[in-house]
């Protein structure tokens, strides 16, 4: 598998890359690997902060960021290069993003970026969105997400296929002649330029990692239909009220978005050649929904995404953020040995009883320990994990929320020491 992945040219280290990837594949398949692998899922600012790079620069300079990610991967002995999850700040700036705030924007240089959750789709706008999603997105959603798109909210935009005639390009003059339209396309030009810089840095990074014999965790990212509605459109408050006040509309929107979340994932996997897709899960954890609500609104969409990815030959990497202990009975239904399940804080004894037959266990060294504990404590924690799962395999070591920005470097080092010492 490894040699077919993007950027992994056959070379002196191709063998090494294949060995590392096999550690992951064995763990997912519930086989005992040669050694318990240490594979951080996705990073925000740990790799840049240990290199003395500000959060601001991490967002504005993609090349610097990926160089730091490469160096951290080697320095801390990870078995692959993690995903990088910081949105490019120059693009956000060009767009005038209102949905994300970023260091160097209106946040201080050393604060991580922030997601601004809001009801971008209001409770009484479901019908408008469902009946004409493109129009609603252009006219209403985009202007709310980014100030560069504000002009789209003010203009009577026609469907694209009406603009079939270039006979008089200026039949569209009233539409296009608004000064903010020029500014919008200038912003898109800037975004396109920034995307070029990002892709160049990313491409170089992929090539370097392959050259050194490291797989890259994933390229594609997607979410469940419920989280997409709740995170991106309705907000936690909105989606929670919808569960009681207008559940049918919530369902209808999730149905509309299901092909999207699946299509995005498969498209990115096929486009990049990397067959792993990261699925951050947000609102399915204990405390956000009752079991009944989970069974009705969350689980079907999550299952649909996972099965669709599996059908397409893609390995889903769901990150079960929060406490999933009450949901283990659902997870037990997933097909065995094919889902790379990453956990935050789930009762792992119960996990082993309920899901030991079908899912690997990836995680879950607590962030608090990594930030405030000692290397000895970290190693003990990893030892405990290996004792729990070592007999059956299916274990991958990572921080509960992967490696967080404030983790002590010596504690991150201790993760590697622990797998070498206890995990062989």
């Amino acid at each position, binding site marked *: 598998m490894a040699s077919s992945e993007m950027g992994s040219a056959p070379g002196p280290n191709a063998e090494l890359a294949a060995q590392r990837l096999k550690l992951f594949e064995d763990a997912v398949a519930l086989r005992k690997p040669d050694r318990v692998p240490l594979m951080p899922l996705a990073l925000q600012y740990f790799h840049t902060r240990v290199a003395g790079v500000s959060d601001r620069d991490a967002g504005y300079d993609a090349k610097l960021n990926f160089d730091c990610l490469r160096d951290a991967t080697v320095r801390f002995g990870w078995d692959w290069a993690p995903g990088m999850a910081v*949105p490019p700040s120059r693009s956000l700036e060009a767009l005038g993003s209102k949905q994300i705030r970023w260091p160097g924007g209106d946040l201080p240089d050393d604060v991580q970026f922030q997601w601004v959750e809001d009801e971008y789709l209001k409770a009484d706008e479901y019908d408008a969105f469902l009946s004409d999603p493109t129009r609603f997105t252009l006219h209403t*959603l985009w202007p709310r997400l980014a100030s560069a798109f504000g002009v789209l909210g003010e203009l009577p935009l*026609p469907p694209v296929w009406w603009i079939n005639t270039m*006979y008089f390009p200026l039949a569209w003059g009233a539409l296009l002649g608004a000064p903010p339209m020029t500014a919008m396309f200038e912003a898109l030009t800037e975004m396109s330029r920034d995307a070029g810089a990002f892709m160049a840095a990313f491409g170089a990074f992929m090539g370097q990692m392959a050259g050194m014999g490291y797989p890259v965790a994933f390229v594609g990212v997607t979410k469940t239909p419920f989280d997409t509605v709740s995170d991106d459109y309705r907000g936690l408050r909105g989606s929670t009220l919808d569960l009681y006040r207008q559940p049918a509309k919530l369902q209808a929107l999730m149905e509309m978005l299901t092909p999207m979340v699946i299509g995005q994932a498969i498209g990115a996997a096929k486009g990049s050649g990397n067959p792993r897709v990261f699925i951050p899960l947000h609102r399915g954890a204990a405390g956000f929904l009752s079991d009944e609500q989970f069974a009705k609104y969350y689980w079907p969409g999550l299952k649909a995404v996972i099965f669709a990815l599996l059908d397409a030959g893609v390995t889903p990497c769901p990150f079960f953020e929060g406490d999933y202990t009450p949901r283990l009975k659902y997870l037990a239904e997933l097909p065995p040995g094919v889902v790379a399940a990453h956990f935050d804080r789930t009762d792992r004894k119960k996990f082993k009883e309920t899901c030991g037959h079908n899912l690997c266990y990836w995680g879950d060294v607590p962030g608090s320990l990594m930030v405030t504990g000692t290397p000895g404590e970290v190693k003990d924690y990893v030892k405990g994990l290996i004792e729990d799962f070592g007999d059956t395999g299916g274990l991958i070591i990572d921080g509960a929320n992967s490696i967080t920005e404030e983790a002590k470097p010596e504690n991150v080092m201790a993760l590697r020491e622990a797998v070498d010492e206890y995990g062989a």
Partner: protein
Amino acid sequence: MTPTPEELYAQREQRFNDIVALRNPDKIPFMPLMMHYFPNRIAGVSNAAVQADHFLRTKLMKEATLKFGFEWAAAVGVPPAKSCEALQMKQLRWPGGDLPDDAPFQWVEDEYIKADEVDQFLADPNGFAMRTILPRIAGIFQPLSFIQFPPTYWLANAYSTILLAPFLSAPGMKEMFEGMAAFCGDAQDFMAAEGGYFGEMAAVGYPRPFVGVGFPAFDLVSDYFRSLRGSTLDMFRQPDKLLAMIDVMLPASINLIIGACKATNTTRAFIPMHRGAGGFMSDEQFEKFYWPSFSALIYACIENGITPMPLFEGDYTPRLKYLATLPPGKVAAHFDKVDRKQFKEMCGDVMCFWGNVPPSLLCTGTPEQVKDDVKELIDVMGDRLIIDSTVGIPDESKPENILALKEAADEYGVL
């Protein structure tokens, strides 16, 4: 006593409206529907120059209006060169582009939707337009043809900035957005020039002929998507698909006009017509493919308080029996070639008669011949008449013949 500009403006509006409504006007006016290059040619300015400079173009429009006694402000329709350049337009050729400076612009008709692509278009008109039609029409849209762009509503998350990076950085994308920014910049100049000109003309008593422009649904399909050849074959080979395309385009046909009129608070709309004339299709085909969506457009205008100004280009004599069924006094019908007497007989109580002075006469005749022709028109039509040539004022008209149109309207047009 000399009338004030406000009074002149009101009189001219009233005159046009009276004639359309089949009421008796105070006189027969000379109101050219639109034109292309006449104003610049008589000023010795090249076609390329006005196509590249909106402000020069509107300055010459003003001069022509005042010099030739048009009774409203001249409207000129030529595609702007800077916009065409910014878009790398393939559907048009223009003077100053790859045409000589004094050639008129040219439309490049082609099957922008091919015969076997109609189903794809019908299934997803937005997607097909983005991926296939736009790249065929203009060079800057080329990247849209090969990037697998997700539906718009997938992109409602600022994190998409990462997910979109492969698309946004695809070859040609930056150039596409730059081209659109340049296009918008030219559109701003266009709006400033047109707004300034029509505002200035209104202040001295000249109404603006129209803002809204829209096309019959059949012409949208034939002119822009399938071409004359394609749509003609479709009438025989895949008539249901042709009708389905017409149905898809009908809201565009109607709403382009209504949207423009509402946005600008104006009540007249120009409807150029291309494929409904005698010779392009049989009467049976006209009834099946052209008339239903055309009449729907006319009725939609009327229901929205808009005076439709169809330009019946080509010979409409065989279609007069259909026109006769339109509601009386609502349509400002402009004619190219039509049998005057038959029109009077069949449609004289339904619609006014506008235009029809032959370009051949204006370009090669004498002022006397022009005046005689206008006199003949007045003899046939009485006061339900507006003077103009067939398709606006021809580019190569002799200036003295255009002055003769005005003289004839003044001399014979007070009944």
